[in-house]
């Protein structure tokens, strides 16, 4: 049990969102989150929690509190500041790079946001505005995530062999591979006939 005198910052580690890239040319997709005291441990925890099965080419982790997240309804109701109005989407503005993620389907319960692209903008809000303009026409977007590139801690290509390759050699057994159900049925039948 936690001592009552313990400082609040010891009570809970930061939450990091985890993004997985399945193949070299695939977009990154959010797969869930982990808690960790720092990005390096967050990366290791992400690997342990989300890369037990193939296939992973690369992982990103980013502190959850660095991510701007807005639902479609929130975006709808937003009044954009005049000063941050995006240009026509052709030239790049000055500013930082933000990665844009969209949740594009409600069909499955476990669907998270997937990377749509990137924008350069002076702030996260301006990046969202620009993202809506640039990617909004590609279809319905239920949730927008704007992730500052500088908040992302990425797995290193040279670590891929030790982090992601061993999962290929591990058996993943479906529940049906165990004969438990068959055996239970046989036992029941045996009992019934006795």
């Amino acid at each position, binding site marked *: 049990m936690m001592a009552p005198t313990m400082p609040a910052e010891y009570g809970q580690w930061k939450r990091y969102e985890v993004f997985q890239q399945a193949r070299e040319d695939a977009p990154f997709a959010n797969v869930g989150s982990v808690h960790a005291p720092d990005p390096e441990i967050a990366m290791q*925890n992400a690997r*342990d929690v989300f890369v037990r099965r193939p296939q992973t080419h690369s992982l990103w982790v980013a502190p959850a509190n660095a991510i701007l997240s807005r639902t479609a309804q929130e975006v709808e109701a937003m009044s954009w500041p005049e000063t941050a109005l995006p240009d026509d989407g052709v030239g790049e503005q000055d500013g930082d790079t933000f990665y844009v993620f969209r949740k594009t389907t409600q069909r499955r319960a476990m669907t998270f946001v997937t990377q749509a692209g990137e924008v350069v903008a002076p702030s996260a809000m301006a990046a969202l505005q620009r993202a809506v303009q640039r990617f909004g026409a590609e279809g319905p977007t239920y949730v927008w995530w704007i992730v500052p590139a500088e908040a992302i801690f990425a797995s290193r290509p040279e670590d891929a062999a*030790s982090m992601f390759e061993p999962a290929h050699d591990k058996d993943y057994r479906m529940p049906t591979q165990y004969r438990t159900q068959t055996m239970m049925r046989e036992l029941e039948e045996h009992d019934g006939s006795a």
Partner: protein
Amino acid sequence: MGLPETAGLDLAGLRAPLREALAQRLLALADDELILAHRNSEWCGHAPILEEDIAFANIAQDELGHAGLWYALLQQLDGSDPDRLVFFRPAEAFRHVRMVELPNGDWAFSMLRQFLFDSYEMLHLQHLAGGAFAPLAQAAAKAHREEIYHLRHTRAWVQRLGLGTAESRRRMQAALDALWPHARQLFRASGSDSLLVEAHIMPSLARLHDAWLEEVVPLLTSSGLNVPQDESRAVQDGREAHTEHLAALLEELQSVARMDPDAVW
């Protein structure tokens, strides 16, 4: 490490004394991994935070997999059945070092034990992977990849706990004081190991010890820990000597199999 002149020895090429020496060494390698994996698995559901619970369960599963590699090689060598060895062998026939059978203690103790063992295993596997007995070299290469990851994880935690709070440092130092004398047993050669070293199948454990010290001492020191200097406390016993903790561990590990020896799963 360059390939030794005798590289490419296969099972048929092993003479009887070498075969026996290798069987003994494989049993030691396998038992180390098995017992450590079992201890680590005891953290499942009890680790300080969910993510570390999963990390340690992963490591336990990997070490169990490595044990499986060594038991399978042993089976090729002398026909012994891995399941019989694991589930029906009496405590006195196990050949792991005492360090891995010690109760888990606190998180610092388990983490440091895993770090000291991973550092040893990593170096050992590197040498075994370049060794002359091809089946052993191939198995070592496979296990090595996972060890890189274990070591990265345990090293990161040794640093964080050593340099963390006064309490985490105190616990790490206590763990180091307790484990350091035991770690020496990993590098104690048994009588027939010299045959394997001469045949370039396994590295000299004395030289491995030097390489290990060069790896772990700077990391421990830079993590704010004092490496014990008292050489007289180093455990010099052979691998047949065990503590009273092994019986209880095996009772749990073997209980289900012994309940129904003919069970299939």
